[in-house]
């Protein structure tokens, strides 16, 4: 009898395993890659950061069911799945970064610093050092993503609390303000000293401007330059139905990826980038007619992606595990659109941008797809129907990459099978 039950349970396990553990955690990947769920249901995981020993930290958009908004995940038995998970902090936010023995995390208006001990445990969870505070949070585009250069400077995105800098935000017919007053304190990337405490706007420097909302940014350590991915403006068709059809709005404007040097201006709100005409176009709120070309003073994008897909993180791949073509190229996660409605939504994947001689080639490809979890990759009408939405990206010490999801809080680990 005992044998029989054993046999039955073994048979049961054999049948149920493939159902329980979907192949590659449900993701579609290029040949030779595999994926598994490193963690699941940890809460709305925005950006993630990984220490040299492989401990993962996730910043949550709001506190999870345990009341924590930063989660530490450790894979102590090294089987690819987190087995020691705990958390702390009460502030929602997006940014997280490991720099030396410090962990930096952002709320929607401030940046805090924690100290890590030799086991990559946080020494002062309840008493972080405030590095920057008082950054504008007017709800719209309020997340503060952070990255560092190779010295010790922090770059933080301060998103514009507006769609197109109209006198009345998102009101049909309301004109664009000239000059756009939002750009003094938002709509750009600010630079701060990572080692100084209690800084605010007057201590920092506006490093790049004319960026409506950046969530994904990363320092390219091979060329020593900042790269950012911008969320383009919404609602061209609803404000200007005579100039833009629903189908055109679904493709306009491009989501843009820029190499930003100090003082660069990407042109928001005055222009947007049209990926079909391959040029900058004057915004209709500033006298544009969908064709009039924008000023050459504004930055050209390094890559133009389809509209509204919402780039959430940028990760330059410096590992040795993946095939050579990935080395020093950039991964970009796309949250998935909402502004393509009434047309089906797009995105919900991680893209790869190849680099050659330190420059983006302008090409891009889908790297990991299937996060939305639809049958046979069917299109989604509403992003709330997506099972997972890619958000944070980070590289582990072994060269695997991790992708976080900010719906229920899955973390996918993607590796290459030599």
């Amino acid at each position: 009898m005992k044998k029989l039950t054993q046999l039955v349970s073994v048979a049961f396990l054999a049948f149920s395993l493939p159902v329980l553990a979907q192949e590659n955690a449900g993701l579609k990947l290029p040949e030779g890659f595999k994926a598994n769920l490193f963690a699941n249901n940890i809460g709305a995981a925005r950006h993630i950061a990984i220490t040299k020993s492989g401990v993962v930290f996730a910043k949550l958009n709001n506190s999870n069911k345990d009341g924590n908004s930063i989660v530490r995940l450790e894979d102590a038995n090294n089987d690819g799945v987190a087995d020691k998970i705990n958390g702390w902090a009460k502030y929602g936010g997006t940014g997280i970064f490991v720099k030396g023995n410090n962990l930096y995390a952002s709320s929607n208006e401030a940046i805090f610093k924690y100290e890590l001990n030799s086991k990559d445990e946080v020494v002062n969870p309840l008493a972080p050092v405030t590095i920057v505070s008082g950054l504008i949070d007017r709800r719209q585009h309020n997340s503060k993503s952070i990255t560092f250069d190779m010295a010790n400077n922090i770059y933080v995105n301060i998103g514009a609390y507006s769609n197109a800098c109209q006198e009345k935000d998102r009101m049909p017919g309301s004109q664009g303000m000239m000059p756009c007053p939002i750009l003094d304190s938002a709509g750009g990337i600010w630079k701060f000293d990572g080692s100084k405490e209690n800084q605010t706007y007057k201590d920092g420097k506006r490093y790049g401007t004319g960026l409506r909302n950046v969530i994904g940014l990363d320092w390219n350590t091979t060329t020593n330059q900042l790269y950012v991915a911008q969320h383009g403006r919404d609602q061209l068709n609803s404000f200007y139905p005579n100039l833009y059809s629903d189908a055109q709005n679904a493709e306009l404007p491009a989501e843009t990826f820029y190499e930003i040097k100090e003082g660069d201006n990407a042109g928001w709100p005055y222009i947007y980038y049209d990926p079909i005409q391959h040029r900058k176009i004057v915004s209709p709120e500033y006298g544009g007619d969908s064709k009039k070309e924008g000023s050459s003073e504004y930055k050209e994008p390094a890559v133009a992606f389809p509209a509204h897909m919402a780039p959430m993180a940028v990760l330059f791949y410096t590992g040795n595990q993946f095939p050579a073509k990935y080395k020093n190229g950039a991964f970009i996660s796309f949250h998935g659109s909402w502004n393509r409605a009434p047309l089906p939504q797009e995105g919900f994947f991680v893209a790869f941008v190849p680099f050659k001689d330190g420059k983006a080639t302008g090409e891009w490809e889908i790297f990991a797809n299937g996060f939305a979890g639809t049958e046979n990759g069917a299109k989604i009408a509403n992003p709330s129907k997506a099972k997972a939405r890619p958000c944070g990206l980070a590289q582990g010490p072994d060269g695997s990459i991790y992708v976080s999801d900010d719906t229920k809080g899955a973390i996918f680990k993607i590796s290459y099978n030599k």
Partner: protein
Amino acid sequence: MNKVSKFSLLFFFLVLAQWGNAQNKINGKKIYETRCLVCHQSDGGGVPNMNPPLDGASNVNGKDIARLVKIIRNGYDERVALDGMYYNNAMAANPDLKEEAIADVLTYIRTSWSNKAGVVTTSQVKAALVKNKAAKK
């Protein structure tokens, strides 16, 4: 008038009222598609963290018509929880929508998807606008 004709007259008005409601809903749908769908989506499901769902929302199905009228007319941008969730986008005002159009779009969102809260009439909207104006003073 005999009983039968009284009855048929009543029936006629009932049919007319039903037809009127259907017309209101069709007009409301048009307004929804041009002004609201982009944010609240075709299924009324909203966009997580950005725009709240209207389908199944307790306020949308609730009794406070004056609040709904105010939101449509004046827009909405407050740090409040809606059915326990916060949303980060800002809803613009619709100052050019006439009373009847506001009634139609509210009828549409209150009777579509899983919502069964019932119609909003033009006179309810007028009363709500008067009430909202008085509350402002």
